[in-house]
């Protein structure tokens, strides 16, 4: 008898690149937990289901996961799938009160998941876009030299939510900033960003803020390097796969900042040890995906506290649980909206020397420039949760 | 209604700089069998294309029962009562003979684009198709795919499609092309039978056929009608001999 943890993510198609890494992080964490006795003595078993990056397919696969006996359904890649899963489980739990399941949101960062769509059975294990923007705003207060900023975001809810947050929150924190550009581009459709770079340069921007990720981010950074653009880049997802390679190739030495829950540049011994061990085992960095480890750590504690692996006691125990993230930072899961609260880190990407951790074999790595405490990135809950 | 089924007035057609039809005047009297002959490349098929709406004329008029049809799309011209066959067999190869004919009779029986009743229940369609199959001597092939028919059978079907649409005016473009003597004779008999009571304009190179079936003959040379008359008049016309027949007895060679 095992405790079944289902991972419902795109295991094929372009997005599989991300899934693949998340799976490694998760398996590594589960192996650790199982080695120490599992959840109250029960081993965790990972089941994987390919949702092919489609919300509809997510529903099919979720049903399969439930039939296979999974207690926790986790999805990480893309908020659209997360929404679909949260919705599916909300209805499922209502229609099948004897077979309830829990949703873990492992990496998607749309604030709506713990905001208007929040659900008693869903938990978000990463900081959301609003929190990250708050972190960015806090950091920019220490950079009065930056006054001309260009906004570049993708179409679609994720890019547009971030864009609005930048305008509101950064604008409020730094009223002196002039928005010299505000472009929305199609999602994952642009093959050559050179025109955008020309426009950014012409605007005289000192910095670009972007919520782009994946191929879009790699392409835009490459184009920036090629076009000789010297502006600084503030990004959420440049620790993710592909981006470090692109930055190093583009030669954007010290120009790209990661504003994220954490990164390998943080001076924490535990983190360093974890990264080294993890890289030795899997060949990739663990830092871009902190959600899985956080979820597992909270789960172990909650299982102990609840003394049961039944859904309702587990959910009750998960609420308000406190633990440390892989970055070594204290974190809590806020009971009101099931949103993770923790500190943030701002780092920039530049060449490293010696035994320091480099990324994707580029010889470049993250250098921490600031840690933003949790208090600065904690925003009030907007969730109106229906509790059973 | 005019006494002429088709009346063509000063019709012209050019492709780019080349004038192919250069002021054709032609009358097809109601109920007559009229043959159109002329050297290769004279423009006979082009004239048929112009009349039937496959091509638009550059200038001139075409009247069908007194109604102007030049430049109209083919379907409209069919509605006005004219239908044609093609020099190169032009049927529905992957459908059965029966289905070919069904398509052809649908419009005249008023069923058009209907989805109201299945074809099997349309008595009038079935009756008409049965009659046509009989007439074309294709009854034994009714469920064969059209592309599995022998060449003369395909030509018969081609003719059937033209006849089936119920038009009272028919244009046939070399209906016997590629047939042997005995096949030609059979085809001629068939054509005579199915065109009974209709006006017919037909292109053919086989002089034997033409002199046997035509009430009148027009000769088209370089895009102009150089002569129209009874078979005897045409045979005797020196200009026709010069332009088309070659030596006076060349027709025996054919």
């Amino acid at each position, binding site marked *: 008898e095992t405790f079944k943890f289902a991972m419902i993510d795109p295991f094929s198609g372009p997005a599989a690149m991300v899934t693949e890494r998340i799976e490694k992080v998760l398996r590594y964490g589960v192996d650790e937990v199982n080695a120490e006795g599992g959840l109250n003595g029960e081993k965790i078993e990972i089941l994987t289901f390919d949702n092919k990056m489609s919300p509809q397919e997510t529903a099919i696969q979720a049903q399969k996961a439930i*039939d296979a006996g999974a207690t926790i359904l986790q999805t990480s890649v893309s*908020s659209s799938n997360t929404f679909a899963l949260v919705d599916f489980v909300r209805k499922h739990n209502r229609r099948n009160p004897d077979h309830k399941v829990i949703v873990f949101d492992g990496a998607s960062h749309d604030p709506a998941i713990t905001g208007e769509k929040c659900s008693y059975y869903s938990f978000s294990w990463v900081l959301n876009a609003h929190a990250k923007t708050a972190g960015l705003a806090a950091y920019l207060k220490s950079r009065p030299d930056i006054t001309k900023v260009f906004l570049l975001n993708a*179409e679609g809810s*994720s890019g547009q939510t971030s864009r609005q947050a930048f305008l509101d929150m950064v604008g409020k924190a730094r009223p002196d900033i002039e928005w010299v550009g505000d472009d929305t581009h199609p999602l994952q459709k642009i093959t050559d960003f050179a025109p955008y770079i020309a426009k950014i340069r012409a605007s005289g921007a000192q910095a670009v803020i972007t919520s782009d990720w994946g191929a879009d981010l790699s392409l835009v950074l490459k184009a920036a390097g090629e076009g000789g653009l010297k502006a600084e880049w503030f990004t959420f997802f440049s620790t993710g796969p592909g981006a470090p390679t692109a930055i190093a190739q583009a030669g954007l030495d010290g120009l790209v900042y990661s504003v994220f829950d954490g990164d390998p540049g943080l001076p924490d011994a535990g983190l360093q040890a974890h990264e080294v061990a993890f890289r030795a085992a899997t060949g990739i960095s663990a830092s871009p995906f902190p959600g899985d480890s956080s979820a597992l750590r909270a789960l172990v504690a909650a299982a102990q506290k609840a003394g049961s692996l039944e859904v309702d006691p587990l959910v009750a125990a998960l609420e308000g649980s406190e633990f440390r993230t892989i970055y070594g930072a204290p974190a809590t899961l806020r009971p009101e909206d099931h949103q993770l609260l923790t500190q943030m880190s701002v780092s920039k990407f530049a060449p490293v020397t010696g035994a320091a951790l480099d990324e994707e074999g580029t010889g470049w790595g993250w250098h921490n420039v600031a840690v933003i405490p949790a208090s600065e990135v904690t925003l009030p809950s907007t969730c109106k949760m229906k509790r059973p | 209604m005019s006494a002429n089924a088709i009346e063509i007035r000063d019709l012209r057609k050019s492709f780019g700089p080349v004038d192919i039809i250069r002021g054709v005047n032609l009358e097809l009297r109601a109920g007559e069998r009229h043959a159109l002959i002329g050297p290769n490349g004279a423009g006979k098929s082009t004239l048929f294309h112009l009349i039937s709406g496959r091509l638009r004329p550059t200038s001139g008029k075409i009247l069908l029962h007194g109604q102007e049809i030049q430049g109209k799309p083919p379907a409209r011209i069919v509605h006005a009562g004219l239908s044609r066959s093609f020099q190169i067999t032009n049927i529905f190869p992957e459908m059965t003979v029966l289905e070919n004919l069904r398509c052809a009779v649908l419009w005249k029986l008023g069923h*058009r684009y209907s*989805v109201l009743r299945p074809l099997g229940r349309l008595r009038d369609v079935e009756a008409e198709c049965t009659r046509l199959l009989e007439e074309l001597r294709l009854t034994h092939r009714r469920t064969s795919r059209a592309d599995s028919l022998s060449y003369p059978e395909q030509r018969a079907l081609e003719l059937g499609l033209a006849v089936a649409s119920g038009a009272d005016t028919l244009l046939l473009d070399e209906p016997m092309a590629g047939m042997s003597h005995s096949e030609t004779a059979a085809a001629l008999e068939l054509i005579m039978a199915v065109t009974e009571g209709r006006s017919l304009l037909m292109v053919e190179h086989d002089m034997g056929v033409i002199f046997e079936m035509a009430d009148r003959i027009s000769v088209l040379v370089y895009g102009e009608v150089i002569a129209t008359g009874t078979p005897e008049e045409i045979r005797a016309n020196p200009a026709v001999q010069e332009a088309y027949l070659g030596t006076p007895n060349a027709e025996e060679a054919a």
Partner: protein
Amino acid sequence: MTMNAIETARSRPGQTLLPATLPWAAVIAVLFILPLAFPGTAMVSTLNYLGTMAIFALSYNVLLGQTGLLSLGHATFFGLGGFIATHALLGMAEAGWAFPLPLLPLIGGLGAFVLGIFGGWLASGKGGMPFAMITLGLSELVYAAAAIFPSIYGSEEGVSMDRMELGSSFGMDYGSATDIYVIVAVWFVICAAGLKYFTTTPLGLLANAVRDNAERVEFLGFSARRVRMWTYAIAAGVAGIAGSLAAINFEIITVIELGAATSTLVLLMTYIGGTRVFFGPVLGAVVIGLMKVWLSDLTPAWMLYFGLLFIFVVMVAPGGLAGILVGAGAMIRAGRLGPQLPLLAAIGGLGLLSLAGVIMLIELGYRAGLDAALGSQIRILGLPMDAHGLNSWGLAALLALGGALSIRPLLSRLETLQHRLGLKGGDPA
């Protein structure tokens, strides 16, 4: 007699020779038995998915098989139907109207039909490649519009609904997948019967005529464009019904459902199933649908198998799976299968061996390359193998190549035999 035998020697899988009512009885019987045979919610909701895709594929075949039109954007109507139905449900639920859920596809279908008339009017001036390209362009436009109108399409996350909000009707509250199964099954029978009926109507016949020889149709008094437009609209309407059913089943509809990937999927289903047999697309939808939903559990390489299956069908069975079945059925009835059986069995056996080899090669390849992190030890088809072991690779290659090579002489013997039996036309040159 024309020399270009290549153009004319197209596939000619004959009409099915089964009595007309038999497949229908079989279909209805199967629809009854299925949910009993496969309990479990996931299985039922998979069946629901297959049912909707089967309707979708049938609608696509109105274009591809019946009218000879290659649409690269049929999913547009599947998706739009789904959005229309979803918004209708949301609107009616908010207004508090009582509308029986099973009739919701009517709204989606009607909406898609009307849009289909418009799209068909634009696209059907020509057949062939221009038609394919216009449908591609139109569907890309509709897809791109989704990014511009998030209030209709709901951004990437789509629009979700709760199908129970319309209340109970027909004695069901629509909470369980089984209720939805009833809806899908009934709609499947309605759509299949309707489309089958359509093939027997004058317009259905004209669609065939347009496929065969669009120009000649004009000289019979019909407008090929109008025929295309109406068949396009009908196909769109049925696709809209399928899309509505998908929306009801998943309770969410997203722009992915009207994108190129979905259009491709339905094309694959229809073609692999077989375009010249009425139920062919259904077969394709079931096979591909199952592969899509279940194969991804068994192997990370499912997309590769998908592509290979597709290439295989295109190369050796242009009549699709249904074409093979119909051909085999005809042979059995003609009593011609008997003499071929030993050879066929040998070919089948070797084919399976070769297939096993190919599967091993692919799985080993994935383990050696992409999934190297999972370790080199792997069980393939029950055999323990090692992605870094020479033996494993050798065995796989031996099976794959050996099987394929030893099949070749057998295939030519089969061909000679079929010649002797008078089954094969066409000259070997």
